[in-house]
């Protein structure tokens, strides 16, 4: 697998003339899992949309291997950079195999036929996400967790070396959240895919990230290993919340315990 560099330089973007990203700089580490966290409306989804060209920046650039993604032909870009949006739509009655096959779209031109290689890619994606047994089932009959695995399978069939995901665990039960995050980690370890995702849950973010990005006010507030980024100061500055950081006994990663006004017997008078 070749290394690709994905770099945002002085990136500004927004909607309706309202600027949400305010001159953001970040180099996405290649071959690693980068997780973006931050409060609502801090611009994390906007950042992901701009990274994947769904949104055109008002200032600055997103450079893939040194070339602005807004100058790269759409199809060519889609062979390197994949995105799973927050609310993808499954057409009524479409089967899993059909949906996953759609991932081959950027590899096909108007007259090119379906090849063995396409079948292999779809098969590999179904196997990796353990959805092969669902292949002929309609997507609308699946559970939330199964459906999310199918969408990830579609992104895998696209065979991109960089995969961006916008809150892939939202609306999922906790067991399915873990399943999806484990799957993305497998993907990163086995295929070397660079994974960039937005997550809501700070503790899951710290557990699964190689690098953690905390965003605030449309800028990068902190970037580094989970140990460097997930600190009591960061949580206070980004979320306006007092907290304790302890070590997650299972993963050894930092874990955030929020401090509220009630049920705080454990810290007694020390507050």
């Amino acid at each position, binding site marked *: 697998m070749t290394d690709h560099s994905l770099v945002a330089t002085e990136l500004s973007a927004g*909607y*309706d003339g309202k600027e949400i990203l305010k001159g953001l700089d970040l180099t996405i580490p290649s071959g690693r899992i980068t997780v973006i966290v931050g409060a609502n409306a801090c611009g994390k989804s906007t950042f992901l*949309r701009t990274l*994947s*060209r*769904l949104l055109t920046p008002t200032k600055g650039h997103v450079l893939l291997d040194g070339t602005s993604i807004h100058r790269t032909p*759409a*199809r*060519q*870009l*889609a*062979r390197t950079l*994949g*995105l*799973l*949006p*927050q*609310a*993808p*739509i*499954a*057409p*009524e*009655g*479409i*089967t899993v*195999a*059909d*949906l996953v*096959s*759609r*991932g081959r*779209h*950027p590899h*096909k031109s*108007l007259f090119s036929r*379906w090849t*063995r290689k396409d*079948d*292999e890619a*779809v*098969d*590999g994606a*179904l*196997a990796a996400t353990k959805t*092969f047994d669902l*292949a*002929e089932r*309609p997507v609308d009959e699946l559970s939330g967790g199964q459906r999310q695995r199918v969408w990830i399978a579609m*992104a895998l069939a*696209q065979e991109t070396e960089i995969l961006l995901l916008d809150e892939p665990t939202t609306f999922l039960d906790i067991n399915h959240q873990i399943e999806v995050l484990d799957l993305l980690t497998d993907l990163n370890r086995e295929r070397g895919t660079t994974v960039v995702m937005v997550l809501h849950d700070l503790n899951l973010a710290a557990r699964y990230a190689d690098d953690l990005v905390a965003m605030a006010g449309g800028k990068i507030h902190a970037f580094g290993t989970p140990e460097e980024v997930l600190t009591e100061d960061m949580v206070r500055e980004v979320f306006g919340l007092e907290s304790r950081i302890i070590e997650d006994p299972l993963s050894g990663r930092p874990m955030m315990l929020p401090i509220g006004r009630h049920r705080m017997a454990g810290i007694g008078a020390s507050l």
Partner: protein
Amino acid sequence: MNMSSPTIDLLAVNRRRKARRHSIALALLLALVVVLFGFTLSVGQSVIAPLDVLRVLSGEPIPGTSFTVGQLRLPRAVLSILSGLCFGLGGVAFQVMLRNPLASPDIIGITSGAGAAAVFAIVVLQMSGPMVSLLAVGAGLGVAVLVYGLSFRNGVGGTRLILVGIGVSAMLQSVIAYILSTAPSWSLQEAMRWLTGSVNGAQLQQALPLLLALAVFGGVLLSRTRDLEALRLGDDTASALGVRVSQTRMLVIVSAVGMIAAATAVTGPIAFVAFLAGPIAARIVRSNGSLLLPAALVGAILVLLGDYVGQVLLPSRYPVGVITGALGAPYLIFLIVRVNRTGGSL
């Protein structure tokens, strides 16, 4: 990786089976068009033997029969098929692109726009013939641009476009009603013909603009089949798959409106054909492949059948638009109830 080859074979087998089902559905629809075409040529107020029909079609003059088949029935059937193809293909392109069966051009005001312009041209400007058609085509495109522009906010949302379209359509309907209420009786008849949609008085040379529209706009739409299929997954996903969403949208809108407007200019707005063809095709094809060609064929079947029912089967003669309208309206109600309940898409 060699281990997985039986599963790959299974995938390939299933894929081929679906492709085969799609081809079979297409072949059956095509066969139905051909059968209906032959049937309407031979069985009408009088019955003409199929062999005689073939002889007339091959250019052999048969007294009486040549006129009935060659001058009356043939142009009717040919225009029914061509306009049906245009309505069906244009309609389904809109529905697929906006992921909503309500997004067909006859619901979102494009047809009303063409109708209002035609009525205005006939009644107020006292025009007739090709100029009316030209104006109608222009107005159809104009309304499409207007509806698109009014519903633009960070890209065009499907639902917003439909609601704006229904509003614009209502406004245009009141314009039509106003003009009709002031119209002198002699132009009223001509104007009404424009509003109901019929293949009465069809002439073979009218087929030419329709063939042209099918070749140019239909070609563009069919070349975008894959992109349209990707758009069914949502704009964001389509974009992530390498589809240039806004560019595809513009192309599809211009082509679909072009086809609908060309057909409307020849036959008038044959009610609900554009709206019905897609969903019917979806029932037939299921999820076995693209809806574009099947819906085009369903459109042709609807117009052929509707015209035949209106001309031959009912006690007095009705234009085809009355028949398809009577068919389409209940379906529209059903769809609105169902979409409200399930948020269903095409």
